[in-house]
């Protein structure tokens, strides 16, 4: 026996699936979409459970959502297990009704019954079951497994039962059209013709595709339009068939609930709803988001991160260097070995490692915001803005992920259905300032903007967002014109994140940074040091005559108009293409400084605050790192778009850094 598990998103479907099944029999993808298909064997061995993607309605908004309809149309199953969130019962029953119209035996798990009770919902399950064709309804708490055994006990008996589809009267005009369509389908074998007809009139594109195999497309269109005309004429407030069907179903649901649902207390607003009224407010939403970002950087730089970094720096430049020198002298290491270890590795790797506290602080706060439920609100708040520029709120999620690392950000764009929106998101996500770039900002703001560290870094992050949005507008109205798509996001209730989970996800995100320091940054530092040590004149040359100076000097004149035309800047930017943290290593090596404070002092000879800011802006935008370029290539499967994403980034970085440098000069900044 095959049982289909269906329900709205975030109703505890996965928890229920895990409780009812022992192990996965199959995990893969539904054909044609990137939605995971899970099949498991029920613990009581009566059959297999197939997990359908969470949906609000069988009429799909996107291809991913079409999976459930496709399943009903083409696969063999004997029972539907519908999970219903008792606390959101009115919305959940909309799907239940559509499934009942299909006409298969159904068992309903009424989940989160505890939450519903606390909100004052009392649901008469017996009565509700009667109203829903006698489908057994079992109150459960999927999170803890309470009631799930009783739920499973119903499967065997229900499978045998013959059920008629639920009949709802949609009014004479529509009923007549449904009758006509069913008659036209007389000669074909199809599951549940009335259901198909209703789905067709509701605008379900998958059902329409199937019907077109039997009835000419023009005939279907004519029938649809004619019916729509008849149904909406004379009705106020109803603009199309879909709306009419929705409103009839809504009335039915309300009638059912008026019999089966009593509210023992009136809870005006839940805590989450009250908070949402403020944080997703039309005018306050974005300022509140900005305020949160500002606080994040205050914590990361001023309040917690920098003091810790200073301690770490004191340790590297003090005791660690001392011990290492003594040990090297004791074993009789040559000057060359001493130099590569102290001026190359300790400077390069240590220079990056001192920023570990800041990176971890940032990751901790990002994890906090993710786990608390605010992240979903950010996407919603940004949706309005994103719509104006030809994207939607969904595209903002890959961008937020890009703040951690651009690579998963680019990959997260896969969730976007519209191909052009996805491409646009892929090529713009690298403009989001990733955590690797943070180490470079840390170095520069510590040197030039001690008083306003958080504000300067915030401005860079915002610049990344603003440039991305601006380019999205330009690209979507020129290169990538497209039809708009819709964005639906489920807002989970707010909660205080668990410390354990927070710590773990911070560590998971941050440990890659430490590992990179021990591997790639190490290797990079040795090579960069060697290039600065050797030159055409042999080894141990003056650094200005080294190979590194020659390479950096080649491109340095290009950067002169931006305020940083030194070979050091050129060399740092070149190495930064491999990974942005390497810029910090390179600077530590070429400015030969024993500690952070001295380095920052030395840098003051080469940069003014204005040219330092221009440098940071250039670094933010100039080119995605090697790993990101590779993932763009993989995801777009196009060399042309990959080169485009490098090329436009270089141009825009140069242009904006130029504007900032000269604009700043014009305004009298130094």
């Amino acid at each position, binding site marked *: 026996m095959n049982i289909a598990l269906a329900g709205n998103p975030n109703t505890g479907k996965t928890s229920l699936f895990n409780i009812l099944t022992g192990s996965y029999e199959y995990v893969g993808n539904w054909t044609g979409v990137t939605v995971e298909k899970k099949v498991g064997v029920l613990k009581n061995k009566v059959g297999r459970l197939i997990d359908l993607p969470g949906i609000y309605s069988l009429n799909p908004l996107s291809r991913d959502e079409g999976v459930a309809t496709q399943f009903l149309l083409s696969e063999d199953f004997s029972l539907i297990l519908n999970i219903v969130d008792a606390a959101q019962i009115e919305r959940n029953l909309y799907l239940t009704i559509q499934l009942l119209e299909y006409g298969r035996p159904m068992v309903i798990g009424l989940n989160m019954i505890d939450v519903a009770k606390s909100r004052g919902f009392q649901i008469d399950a017996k009565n509700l079951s009667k109203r829903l064709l006698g489908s057994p309804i079992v109150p459960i708490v999927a999170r803890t497994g309470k009631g799930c055994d009783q739920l499973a006990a119903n499967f065997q008996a229900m499978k045998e039962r013959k059920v008629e589809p639920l009949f709802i009267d949609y009014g004479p005009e529509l009923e007549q059209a449904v009758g006509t369509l069913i008659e036209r389908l007389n000669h074909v074998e199809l599951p549940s013709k009335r259901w198909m007809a209703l789905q067709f009139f509701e605008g379900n594109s998958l059902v329409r595709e199937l019907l077109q195999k039997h009835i000419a497309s023009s005939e279907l269109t004519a029938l649809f339009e004619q019916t729509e005309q008849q149904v909406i004429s004379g009705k106020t407030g109803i603009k199309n068939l879909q709306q009419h069907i929705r409103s009839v179903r809504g009335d039915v649901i309300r009638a059912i609930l008026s019999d089966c649902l009593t509210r023992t207390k009136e809870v005006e607003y839940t805590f989450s709803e009250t908070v949402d009224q403020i944080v997703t407010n039309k005018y306050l939403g974005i300022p509140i988001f900005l305020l949160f970002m500002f606080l994040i950087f205050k914590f990361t730089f001023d309040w917690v991160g920098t003091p810790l970094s200073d301690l770490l720096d004191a340790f590297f430049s003090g005791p660690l260097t001392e011990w290492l020198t003594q040990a090297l002298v004791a074993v009789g290491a040559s000057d060359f070995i001493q130099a590569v270890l102290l001026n190359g590795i300790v400077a390069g790797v240590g220079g990056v490692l001192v920023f570990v506290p800041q990176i971890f602080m940032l990751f901790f706060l990002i994890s906090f915001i993710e786990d608390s439920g605010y992240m979903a609100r950010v996407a919603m708040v940004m949706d309005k803005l994103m719509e104006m520029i030809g994207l939607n709120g969904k595209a903002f999620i890959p961008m937020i992920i890009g703040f951690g690392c651009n690579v998963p950000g680019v990959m997260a764009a896969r969730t976007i259905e519209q191909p052009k929106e996805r491409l646009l998101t892929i090529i713009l996500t690298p403009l989001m300032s990733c955590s690797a770039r943070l180490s470079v900002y840390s170095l520069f703001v510590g040197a030039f903007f001690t008083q306003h560290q958080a504000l300067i870094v915030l401005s860079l992050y915002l610049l990344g967002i603003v440039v991305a949005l601006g380019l999205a507008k330009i690209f979507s109205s020129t290169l990538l014109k497209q039809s708009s798509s819709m964005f639906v996001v489920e807002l989970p209730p707010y909660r205080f994140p668990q410390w354990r989970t927070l710590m773990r996800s911070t560590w998971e995100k941050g440990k890659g940074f430490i590992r990179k320091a021990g591997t*790639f940054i*190490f290797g990079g530092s040795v090579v960069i040091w060697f290039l600065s040590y050797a030159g055409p004149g042999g080894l141990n040359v003056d650094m200005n005559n080294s190979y590194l100076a020659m390479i950096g000097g080649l491109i340095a004149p290009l950067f002169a108009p931006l305020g940083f035309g030194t070979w050091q800047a050129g060399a740092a930017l070149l190495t930064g293409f491999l990974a942005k943290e390497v810029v910090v290593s390179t600077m530590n090596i070429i400015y030969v400084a024993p500690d952070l404070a001295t380095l920052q002092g030395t840098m003051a000879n080469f940069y003014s605050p204005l040219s330092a800011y221009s440098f940071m802006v250039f670094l933010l935008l100039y080119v995605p790192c090697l790993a990101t370029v590779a993932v763009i290539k993989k995801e777009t499967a196009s060399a042309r778009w990959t080169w485009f994403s490098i090329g436009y980034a270089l141009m825009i970085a140069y242009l904006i850094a130029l504007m900032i440098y000269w604009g700043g000069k014009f305004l009298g900044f130094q």
Partner: protein
Amino acid sequence: MLINILLGVLIFGYAGWTLYRFVRKSKEGKCAGCSIKNSCKSACDAQLEEQKAPL
């Protein structure tokens, strides 16, 4: 002298190896080149290339 050669080989050998590995992994793109691959819930599940919607 011996200690110098030993340290030199260790340092430069390890450096060369890490660089080689980094460039190879980065070119693979995807999860291999990603610094948060272990915690990433968004895209690193086993999705097959051909099942991706075409651009």
